[in-house]
């Protein structure tokens, strides 16, 4: 038995080997590489010797106003995109919960932006937020909510708002889908019992629905926060970090340092800082949410 087991074990390894080899070379080795490079003044020319500078790249980041600005923009993006995606995604899911012939149609329409490529929707939003675009026309000429046109993409905060609007618009369908699946798991009997007890709509939601979908909500929030700090394509396409680098986010700043300024060491340090930040945020959230669900259960 043990002999056949061991022989079977080798066959298992053979099944894993090709994929694992590629994974080790193309993913694991670069993970270690990024950490290593962050400790060097990295020379990209062949033959040039890179210089070990310890934590200098990290120290430099902490004293670099542009780094803090891009961190701030990433945080702003996260704060302005995560709550709306949760709230609106849940709202749409609740509205679509009841089975009806129209439900799959609506579901598909809300999901359409999710499957569309980031580059295409970023171009589209750049066009919508252009000076003579549909947004200005709707808000100024049509609804008269603004007294004049806003040059959205030529100011830091309005440009960030446009970028965030895209993030929310593209993401609602995804959180809706997660919530729809989670809502299937809410026992009808509980809901009815609460109704019998005279619980109002809000109370039923808070006492019955929310605890039942809490695990999915946790999962979603953690992933959305990670996604928020990974914003890249929409910024590159819509503003390319401009005007005057005021809308750089962490990843576009990292990219600029690495591939425009060819400072691979500093770029790597920023990448590592981002990875650590995301990891810490995820761990904190998982802990907080688990505690909360423990109290509510």
């Amino acid at each position, binding site marked *: 038995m043990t002999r056949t*087991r061991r022989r*079977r*074990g080798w*066959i*298992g*390894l053979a*099944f*894993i080997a*090709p*994929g694992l080899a590629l*994974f080790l*070379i*193309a*993913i694991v*080795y*670069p*993970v270690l*590489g*990024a950490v290593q490079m962050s400790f060097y003044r990295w020379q990209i020319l062949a033959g040039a010797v890179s210089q070990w500078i310890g934590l200098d790249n990290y120290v430099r980041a902490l004293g670099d106003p542009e780094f803090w600005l891009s961190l701030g923009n990433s945080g702003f993006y996260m704060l302005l995109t995560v709550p709306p995606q949760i709230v609106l995604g849940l709202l*749409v899911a609740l509205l679509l919960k009841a089975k009806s012939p129209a439900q799959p149609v*609506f579901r*598909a*329409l*809300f999901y*359409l932006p999710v*499957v569309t*490529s980031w*580059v295409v*929707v*970023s*171009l*589209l939003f750049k*066009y919508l937020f*252009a000076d003579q675009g*549909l947004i200005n*026309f709707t808000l100024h*000429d049509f609804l008269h909510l603004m007294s004049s046109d806003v040059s959205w993409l030529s100011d830091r905060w309005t440009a960030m708002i446009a970028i965030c609007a895209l993030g929310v618009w593209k993401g609602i*369908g995804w959180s809706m889908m*997660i919530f729809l*699946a*989670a809502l299937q*798991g809410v026992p009808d009997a509980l809901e009815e019992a609460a109704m019998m007890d*005279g619980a*109002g*709509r809000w109370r039923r939601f808070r006492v019955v629905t929310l605890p039942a979908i*809490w*695990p999915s909500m946790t*999962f979603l929030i953690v992933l959305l926060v990670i996604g928020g700090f*990974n914003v*890249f*394509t929409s910024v590159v*396409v819509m503003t390319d970090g401009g005007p005057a680098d005021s809308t750089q986010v962490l*990843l576009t700043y990292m*990219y600029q340092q*690495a591939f425009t300024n060819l400072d*691979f060491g500093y*770029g790597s340090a920023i*990448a590592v800082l981002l*990875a650590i930040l995301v*990891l810490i945020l995820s761990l904190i959230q998982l802990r907080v949410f688990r505690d909360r669900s423990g109290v509510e259960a």
Partner: protein
Amino acid sequence: MTAGRRRRPLGAILRWVLLLAGAAIMVVPFLYMLSTSFTGQAYVLTIPPQLIPDPPTIGNYVQALGTQDFGRYFVNSVVVSVIATAAAVLLSSMMAYGFARFDFPGREWLFRILLIGLVVPAMMLIIPQFILAKQFGLVDTLAGLIVFYVAGNLAFNTFLLRGFFAALPGELDQAMQMDGANVWTRYWRLAMPLARPALGTVTIFTFLSCWDEFAWALTLIQTPSNATLPLALSLFQGQNSTLWGLVFAGSIIAVVPVIIVFLVFQRTLVQGLTAGAVKG
């Protein structure tokens, strides 16, 4: 609040109004893009905006596919996405089968290493990956895109498929073994057909992620003729910031295959999307 039953007609109306308004916000931008792609350059970004092109023209499409070479970018995207998807699904299903069906020293550790791929942000790796690609002579090649797209999709796919293979009943496997079927036959003829729903999900997700990928293509590709659609679109718009009709003709060319895949495989997609999320 307690009068929920009596207020139902009003509630139903409110529900429909909200849903329709939401759906309009989701769809109108797409329609506007479609309409702009059929609008002549002189009529783009006029006030009031032209929602229905007058006069409509297919000139943008003719130009996109003709002088602007979008046909070539389309082919590049198809080649890269199809090969990368096939390779990623094959390799990750083999890994998943190995992890699910066999016991070998270090199995748990190897699986944990694989989980790194789920945790680390892909963009963090882009600098060392570029250096790696340079060492292997993969810079500015479609092969370089394919290799790293396959690698980037392995962890998630293996993770998803392993659960599926582990849930398949072992008796069938043993019965086939009794009949003298070798391991490869059992994997290819038994496990793979049974795992078809999960393989479908994994295939669609991998294809969409390759089709849409931008950052790595931006980094690796230098010659325009090697560009994939997302890269070509962004470069084109960067250089011709006002030719929106042409930009969106190219965008529609890029988006249509995705929307077809989405509509045809909607059900598989939804199942796969929610599979990981709801177990909690």
